[in-house]
């Protein structure tokens, strides 16, 4: 079984694609059949992924000797583009994460999309996304990765804009695509530079070539390449300054937010850096940049999350913040920690989002947490799951977040103190705003006009499963030795630095207590605090005006400049053309004006010609005579 799965790993992305085709062409209009097709396909993929995992755990495959299959995709001249499958533990882990979350989210969607006429389309897009994401995960070379990278981008575009009749949704989708596109531009440049430098884009070949190159000709050029490559992840994983699209992306249906904008697609950036770690890890400058961008993003997003009101937006900023964590981990050189956190985060963030979906649906699309309250009485299961998620993300032992976050903090502490402090502060903020979310939405007394009710079983089942995963995955990873398994270079031994762990847990508890005091016990009023920190509060509440800044930039450097150039096109380039035409016309006027109908004028002109020609003849005659030397 597991051997079959390993050799047929290419089936994993192909099956959902098949589902997309079938649904798209035939069963688009029948939502139940479409759902069945999509779910069955993804579950087969899930089983295959399990098989791959088993094979990887048992078999000889390690990070250093992966399994590779390739097919030629396009060939021109010396350039050969190929597609294929690369299976190593990291891939296996990602396959599991993606297929699991995708499967659960699709099951959840059956309930969530019950009343939406476009459900068929929804499942088609979900399947397409799943297949692209899986294709991205198993890429063998940068080009394949870039291709699927773009594809997942488009899927997210389609799914964010799923409610295409909502102006906000369509704009959010556009924003997401363009913003990530800016990242892709840099990444594409990096890929092209790699291609012309090494003549190949294959990960395994580059793994051999790059260190040799750096050893010979220094890091200068490769640093540029590395930075360019890193722009892609910045865009895709919502790192500062290209994070602006992710919060808006919450316009999409909640399952989409859970699957794409929390669990899978947004971590593609992290995955890319991990995949190309043999480049980055050799470039200290780039590593520093990654680390700091990650750290800063984590903190920055957390500070925004504190003051937001809509349920999903808080989660979105927390996602950005967590992605920052992962980047930070990569930057400080711990691939293992990053990947570990990626996995745990995928589970508990998906859980949180699905809970959010349930809540918002129960509240009839009311997203503002301050309009909720006391939901724990109405939606006990959801509340329990939510609580698990919050504890997990806050890093309370023994929940998943604790282990992964601890590993990151430890790694950061090893490298630089400032980064560690930043991370720790972020941990504190995270705990605080998650607690705030939980307390405000679920505690307190129920409002009388609250329509909330427990959701249907389709939506409850995935919550429970994810909650379980959010509890166990961390411990499992820690004790089953995630570290011997996904690593770069040498295996780094695992230990819990009780100093760090203890302090972070302490911070978390303080944050919880604080949040409890403010939002449940109401010892201090939130408004007072807001006024106390006036400037900071406004800044944070308005997301530091980054969006406004971008708007200004776009208006001036795109629209205004475009208008100017178009004016130039109309009046200069085209003006020259029309001007020439007019000029010829005027010339025609002038000439024909000579033709005044007077016969004698004609004769006169005629004889002018005669005189000219006779003069010419005389001139020639004189010349000839001079030639003959005056023979007369």
């Amino acid at each position: 079984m597991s051997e079959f799965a390993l050799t047929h790993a290419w089936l994993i992305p192909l099956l959902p694609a098949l589902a997309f085709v079938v649904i798209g062409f035939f069963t688009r209009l029948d939502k139940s059949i479409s759902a069945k097709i999509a779910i069955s396909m993804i579950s087969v993929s899930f089983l295959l992924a399990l098989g791959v995992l088993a094979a990887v755990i048992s078999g000889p495959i390690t990070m250093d000797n992966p399994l590779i299959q390739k097919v030629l995709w396009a060939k021109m001249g010396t350039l050969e583009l190929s597609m294929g499958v690369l299976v190593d533990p990291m891939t296996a882990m990602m396959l599991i994460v993606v297929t699991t979350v995708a499967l659960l989210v699709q099951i959840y969607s059956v309930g969530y999309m019950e009343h939406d006429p476009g459900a068929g389309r929804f499942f088609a897009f979900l399947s397409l996304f799943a297949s692209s994401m899986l294709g991205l995960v198993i890429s063998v070379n940068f080009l394949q990765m870039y291709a699927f990278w773009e594809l997942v981008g488009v899927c997210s575009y389609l799914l964010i804009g799923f409610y295409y009749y909502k102006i906000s949704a369509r704009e959010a989708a556009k924003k997401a695509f363009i913003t990530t596109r800016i990242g892709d531009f840099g990444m594409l440049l990096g890929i092209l530079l790699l291609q012309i430098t090494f003549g190949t884009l294959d990960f395994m070949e580059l793994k051999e070539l790059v260190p040799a190159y750096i050893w010979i000709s220094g890091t200068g050029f490769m640093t540029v390449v590395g930075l360019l490559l890193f722009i892609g992840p910045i865009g895709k994983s919502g790192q500062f300054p290209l994070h602006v699209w992710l919060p808006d992306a919450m316009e999409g249906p909640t399952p989409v937010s859970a699957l794409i904008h929390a669990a899978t697609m947004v971590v593609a950036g992290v995955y890319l850096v991990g995949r190309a770690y043999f480049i980055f890890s050799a470039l200290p400058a780039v590593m520093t940049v990654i680390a700091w961008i990650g750290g800063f993003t984590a903190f920055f997003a957390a500070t925004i999350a504190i003051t937001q009101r809509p349920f999903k937006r808080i989660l979105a900023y927390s996602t950005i913040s967590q992605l920052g964590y992962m980047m930070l981990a990569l930057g400080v050189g711990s691939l293992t920690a990053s990947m570990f956190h990626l996995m745990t985060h995928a589970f508990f963030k998906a859980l949180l989002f699905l809970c959010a979906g349930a809540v918002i649906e129960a509240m009839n699309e009311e997203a503002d947490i301050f309009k909720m309250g006391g939901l724990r009485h109405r939606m006990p299961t959801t509340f329990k799951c939510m609580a698990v998620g919050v504890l997990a993300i806050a890093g309370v032992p023994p929940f998943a977040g604790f282990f992964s976050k601890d590993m990151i903090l430890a790694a950061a502490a090893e490298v630089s103190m400032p980064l560690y402090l930043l991370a720790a502060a972020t941990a504190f903020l995270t705990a605080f705003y998650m607690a705030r979310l939980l307390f405000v939405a679920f505690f307190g007394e129920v409002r009388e006009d609250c329509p909330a009710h427990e959701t249907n079983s389709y939506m409850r089942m995935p919550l429970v499963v994810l909650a379980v995963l959010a509890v166990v995955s961390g411990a499992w990873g820690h004790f089953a030795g995630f570290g011997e398994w996904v690593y770069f270079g040498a295996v780094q031994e695992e230990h819990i630095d009780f100093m760090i762990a203890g302090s972070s847990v302490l911070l978390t508890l303080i944050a919880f207590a604080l949040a409890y005091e403010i939002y449940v016990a109401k010892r201090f009023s939130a408004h007072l605090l807001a006024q106390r920190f006036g400037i900071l509060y406004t800044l944070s509440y308005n997301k530091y005006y980054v969006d406004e800044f971008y708007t200004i930039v776009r208006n001036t450097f795109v629209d205004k400049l475009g208008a100017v150039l178009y004016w130039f096109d109309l009046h200069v380039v085209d003006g020259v053309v029309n001007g020439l035409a007019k000029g010829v016309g005027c010339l025609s006027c002038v000439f024909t004006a000579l033709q005044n109908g007077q016969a004698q004028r004609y004769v006169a002109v005629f004889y002018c010609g005669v005189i000219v020609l006779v003069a010419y003849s005389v001139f020639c005659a004189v010349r000839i005579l001079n030639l003959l030397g005056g023979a007369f």
Partner: protein
Amino acid sequence: MIDIFSLSVMDIVNWSLHVGLAHFLLLAAVLFSIGLYGLLTKKGIISTLMCVELMLNAANINLVAFNHYRPFQDFSGQLMAIFSVAVAASEVAVGIALAFRIYREHGSIHVDELNNMKG
């Protein structure tokens, strides 16, 4: 070339007394010019045609004079002159006929009033 400025009065007298080819050529040229002047200035069709006649005859004088003064073996020059006279006659005939028609249509035979078509 003949150096015109080194000629004395006597030379000119001699030249003008002994009539030769040059005189005829000069005459022809003068006739031609007169005809041309008239062609350009005269308004009536008839006078225009007369001027054309002058020009044609200037050419005829040339032909005959050349044929007489140069040692040519045949008389093709004079032949040509005769033909051209005939041609000139035919042209004038057409011209007169047209003059009648124009007079009937416009009430005058002034060439310069015929400027309906232009541009």
